[in-house]
């Protein structure tokens, strides 16, 4: 399973992501946008856009990365998505997928963005752990337990779209993870760390193969990544299950 981890100046979660894929058994490779040429992506089984601050997030988180991908290899990306192969973006990567119009993708790929990940309600960068409830089994979540914990680390993560789009996302069942409070009730700040509409933390496109998630599964891959490992022993970090789901799914698809 060859995974292209896309890089540009300011992406900075690629190393943890690389380790997570590697440990799961996949073959990750870094692919810098400066070295990316037409036709290159095709040979990969998956595209992964890691977190960070691509181009400093100066204009809007993910905007420059998306614009550059669009300028360089837009057709390849469209083909990739349409071939059904998985594309995943974490944090800044999620922001990129939104800006590209690949997510929410309620009716397939959109020319212009259909949603936004905007400034957190707290107006602060928030580095903290959150509880998530799985609301859909997808190739990215199938093997995950129903409740997991992951860390968020972002200033722009409030999922926002017009009511029509939100309704479509919900009707299509595209929400994969939602923020919840520790007692599984509706979360207030900080349990919904950014004010996302409907507590949306992760969504998948309507085809089911493009996945964006604000919290960082790669930073919760090992048990000792969890902040409470000295009191709650675990076999695996909760993020592991996301990589595992993907790996199983792709391998099954390949062997079919």
């Amino acid at each position, binding site marked *: 399973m060859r995974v292209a981890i896309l890089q540009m100046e*300011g992406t*900075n979660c690629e190393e943890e992501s690389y380790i997570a894929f590697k440990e799961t058994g996949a073959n990750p490779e870094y692919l810098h946008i400066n070295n990316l040429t037409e036709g290159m992506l095709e040979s990969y089984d998956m595209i992964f856009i890691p977190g960070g601050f691509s*181009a400093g997030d100066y204009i809007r988180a993910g905007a420059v990365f998306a614009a550059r991908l669009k300028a360089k290899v837009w057709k390849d990306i469209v083909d990739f998505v349409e071939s059904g192969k998985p594309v995943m973006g974490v944090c800044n990567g999620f922001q990129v997928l939104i800006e590209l119009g690949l997510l929410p993708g309620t009716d397939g790929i959109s020319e212009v963005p259909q949603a936004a990940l905007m400034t957190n309600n707290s107006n602060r960068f928030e580095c903290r752990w959150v509880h998530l409830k799985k609301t859909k089994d997808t190739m990215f979540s199938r093997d995950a337990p129903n409740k997991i914990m992951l860390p968020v680390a972002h200033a722009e993560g409030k999922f926002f779209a017009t009511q029509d789009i939100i309704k479509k996302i919900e009707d299509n069942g595209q929400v994969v993870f939602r923020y919840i409070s520790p007692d599984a009730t509706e979360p207030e700040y900080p349990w919904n760390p950014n004010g996302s509409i409907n507590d949306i933390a992760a969504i998948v496109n309507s085809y089911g193969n493009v996945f964006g998630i604000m919290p960082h599964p790669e*930073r919760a891959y090992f048990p000792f*990544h969890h902040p*409470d490992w000295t009191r709650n022993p675990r076999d695996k970090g909760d993020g592991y299950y996301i990589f595992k789901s993907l790996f199983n799914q792709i391998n099954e698809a390949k062997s079919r």
Partner: protein
Amino acid sequence: MKLKKIEDGVYEVNIIDATDEELHEINNTMGLALSVEEMKKIRDFFREMGRNPTDLEIHAIAQGWSEHCSYKSSKPVLRKYIFGIPSEHTMIVMQDDAGVVEFDDEYAYVFKIESHNHPSAVEPYGGAATGVGGIIRDVLNMGAKPIALVDPLFFGPPDYSGKLNKGVKHPLFLINGVISGIRDYGNRVGIPTVAGITYFHEDYINNVLVNAGCLGIVKKDKIVRSAVYSTGIKLVMVGGRTGRDGIHGVNFASKILDEKSEEERQAVQLGNPILKEPLIHLVLEANERGIIHGMKDLGGGGLGSVVGEMCHAGGVGANVYLDKVLLKEGDMAPWEIWVSESQERMLLAIEDKNLQTLEKLCEKWDIEMSVIGETIEQKNLRIFWHGNKILDMPLEFITAGVEYERDYTVRRVQEMQEIPPEPNYRSVFLKLLSSYNIASKEWVIRQYDHEVQGRTVIKPMHGIVGYESHGDAAVLKPLHDSWKGIAITTVSNPHISKLNPYLGALYTVDEAVRNLVAVGAMPSSMSDGLNFGNPERPEIMGEFVETCRGLGDAARALGIPYVSGNVSFYNEAFGKNIPPTPVLMAVGIIDDIRNAITSDFKKEGNYIYTIGKTTGEMGGSEYYSMLNASSTIVPRVNVERTKLLSKQLLSAISKGLVESCHDISHGGLGVTIAEMSIGGNLGAEIDLKNMEHFRSDIKLFSESPTRWVCEVQPENAEKFESHVEGKHIGVVDGERLKVRDGERWLFNVDVATMRKIWRGSLEKYLR
């Protein structure tokens, strides 16, 4: 000042015929910040050469001789006390830009702390950001991958309502500016900020202190030195371009702040993390390929100090072609190029045959490079400009600089301690929890990404998610395939150092040890950030000497070396000097991170112990300062006890006998237990009866050194007691913290109430 134009932007300065007054004038006009004695030395040198210098030559010397580059006031003192503490594991100590210490067979860790005080006072956001940027380069230029940042900060109180001197910014403006500067830079480059200090006192209204530290990890065989050892090696600049920004930063750092400082705009920069991030990749990849012969970052002193120091260290000279330096603005004079401190630049020494590889890497990371010179046999520095030689001097003269044995006086204090009336315990306790130096720093900590890179296995906040409280040190797991960990903490106790610099220094080293031991780490080495007032004042120089003596005595007795450090003098403004503020960044090693422990209470029914002796020296305590009670008697550390108790405690922790541990510091035992309760969301029942004989408030709020609180399972109690001399003072229990002294109940507070008060105090101030 008599000048003769040689060509555009280059002048000959008539110094050999200059009178003393004229020397003074040259010094001022050129902004050199040298003393008349130093100017005379320069005059003598050129008289001997039989010619006048160019303006560039004078600037180059001034740069090399600045306090910041030459440590002229501090070197003799540092040499006496701080340098040369023996240790088996150190590899590079106080030589290059950061210290290097063995981590395991294959790897070393590299770290340093540095100040960026003056720039942050003038422009908090940019000053703090470039402080972080600079310290990252110091670690990077050893060939190491930066994996952690720390940020000790000292501000005036956020709610200060008194008068401010002209040009001085309100603490709140500075606080938010500094914290956002560190946040935006650190988060964007992707290095976690894992520890720090947020300290508030009126002493820092005129002089904020912004220190920043960085730690990196490097394979031992990939360590790069800041030296060029052979001739014919190319000097290559990579990264940012050179501009007029940051001219005279080092001279600025060696000046007293005054009203005019606002105008010293050229010393202000904002920093560019999005240039730095790929630059880090570039440098590490080039190093991985083994093509870097030597490397140094361009920090204080710019190109001038870097070329000089690198060549001088390796025993070669250099030819530099200044017109090859890539510029932000076209019309810069050679001297400006030479001294500019523009950010995000590195100088690499590269053999000819490897230039092409470097070019390829630069292309990939979209980074500019330029070959600006090469090393030569003759130990001179020569600078060319449009083909003309405009500087030619022995390197020795420029870089060796000057040194002073400054006069100093040591203040003697009359020992006295007031005994205030016994307080209402509940209200005093809650007030302490909300005092700015004790209250939760979560609002700062969470604005920093402290987990990026996935190595932070003990975070700065400890406890049940959503209920966390303060920990003592962060722990990183630097290598993917090893369980070995690095613990990092930062400490400073200006309230004690102000009363007694020597004992304050001992206390600070003791606290560094306490914090590391509390997570289960063996103290390994330290970096000292020394922030002081004006060293030309004998009483300030006295504080400096006494502090260094204390730092040296404690560290030597404990066998923990200082491997890097930084001195920031001239933290004086409007006649006021900061109190002595030695800041330590201390690093510990933990053989297996799975044995690390945190500060939060784990389980009801567990026993609570205090380790160490409580004494009644209340000088510098938060309790006394809250009551406005006076005492000049500060806690006295017995370093032998520090050694013994930390050894005992570490052995108990490594055997898994301790469930949680927190050292006793600001606010004393009461606050320590409160924090443990808050993080574990569990109360406790405490009886102070078994402690030393003092009035209950002393037992609860004394900040005497070398003490910890430990939580131990009842079934481990006997074993624990066989390892450690501890006193059993209570049990973890319920949802309230209940404290009594024998028959007498002192207070009983619900954990949720404590948390609310402790968290609430600073939140509203931090944007």
